[in-house]
């Protein structure tokens, strides 16, 4: 091995020679077997060391721990800076959601009002004609996927005329018809998932009340006075609790 070259062999493999030295050494290696063997020897060791040296890796938990430790702490003001657009988006989404809920509720109310009107206009408004709740309630058994309690009407101005199966949103429910001072009132009872709370108020010329209890939604509608609607609603609510 010629001496002036030997000191350059390692920097050559470490990629630290100048381009000129690199070229010179390249051509020297083609003519000097001793230096070529020495370069090969160094190269083999370098590769073996690289493989053997990459041996240890940190555990993911440890890495996460240090990462949390050095993560930048965002001051409150900075937090609000991104919170404002996020809140704005949430508010818009909420108002769209509420708007849709409201229009769905309005739609459902008018549909039930239609059902109330068409039923009363029919020649056979009820399928089970009875003023006895103990007759009406069992009639529904097996026809609708739930049971319910009906109020005792003795000592009230209300009378039960009868009941029928009603369909709303492709779900079956109970439709009861009551009478108070010649005014007919419809009571719709559906599983809560099929009929959401519709609120209380006026639908077209009708008064109405609605609530949910025990997984069922109730909707009371009729041309009776608002007070009567509320009274019947209270009776039904009490009966449902028993």
């Amino acid at each position: 091995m010629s001496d002036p070259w030997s000191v350059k062999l390692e920097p050559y493999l470490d990629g630290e020679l100048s381009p000129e030295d690199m070229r010179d050494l390249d051509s020297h290696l083609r003519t000097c077997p001793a230096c070529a063997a020495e370069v090969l020897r160094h190269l083999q060791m370098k590769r073996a060391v690289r493989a053997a040296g990459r041996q240890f890796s940190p555990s993911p938990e440890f890495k996460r721990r240090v990462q949390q430790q050095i993560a930048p702490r965002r001051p409150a003001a900075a937090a609000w800076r991104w919170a404002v657009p996020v809140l704005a988006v949430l508010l818009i989404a909420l108002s769209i959601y509420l708007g849709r809920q409201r229009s769905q509720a309005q739609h459902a109310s008018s549909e039930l009002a239609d059902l109330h009107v068409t039923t009363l206009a029919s020649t056979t408004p009820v399928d089970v004609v009875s003023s006895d709740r103990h007759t009406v309630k069992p009639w529904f058994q097996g026809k609708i996927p739930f049971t319910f309690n009906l109020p005792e009407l003795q000592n009230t101005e209300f009378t039960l005329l009868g009941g029928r199966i009603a369909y709303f949103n492709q779900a079956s429910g109970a439709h009861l018809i009551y009478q108070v001072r010649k005014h007919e009132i419809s009571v719709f009872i559906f599983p809560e998932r099929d009929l959401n709370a519709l609120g209380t108020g006026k639908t077209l010329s009708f008064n109405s009340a609605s609530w949910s209890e025990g997984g069922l939604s109730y909707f009371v509608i009729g041309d009776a006075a608002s007070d009567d609607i509320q009274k019947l609603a209270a009776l039904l609510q009490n009966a449902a609790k028993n």
Partner: protein
Amino acid sequence: MNDRLTAATFEELALPLFDQLYNFAHWLARDRAEAEDLVQETYVKALRGFASFQPGTNFRAWMYRILRNTFLTSRTGLKQTVTLGEDVPEPASEQTPESILLGHAEQELLQAAMEDLPLPSREIILLADVEEMSYQEMAETLGVPIGTVMSRLSRARRTLRDLVRRKLEHHERPLVGKTRTVS
């Protein structure tokens, strides 16, 4: 540069180096728990001192330098520097152990030899051949001139080669004997 920006930039620069810094720390400390302490301390120190880091200089070398200094002042580091100084190179031999090292079975032997290297040799070989640092980066990491890097690296490679050869000679006979018993 406000603090938040500093921390964000630091995270971006420092996290990609995590695995290799850990590997280096483990090679220095030769113990998982100590390596973890070392890396954690390095990151905390580096974040705290990030304002003093000169943009445009080598960030990797800066991180390795912090890790190395942290190690050298640790109990294990002090012990290694006191008991193991620069060793006397063995006389060169005509045998070449490098070709044998290419096989997988010999990798453990090489790892053992690397562990046996005195600290100054071990670290410079790791920086050069495992971390693949340039001479300039190593000079920055170790805080020595490039000429010192070159001579130290060359000496370290010679020492490693001698250690490997000694281990090969030592293992040769029992290894052959074992093979015979099995067959």
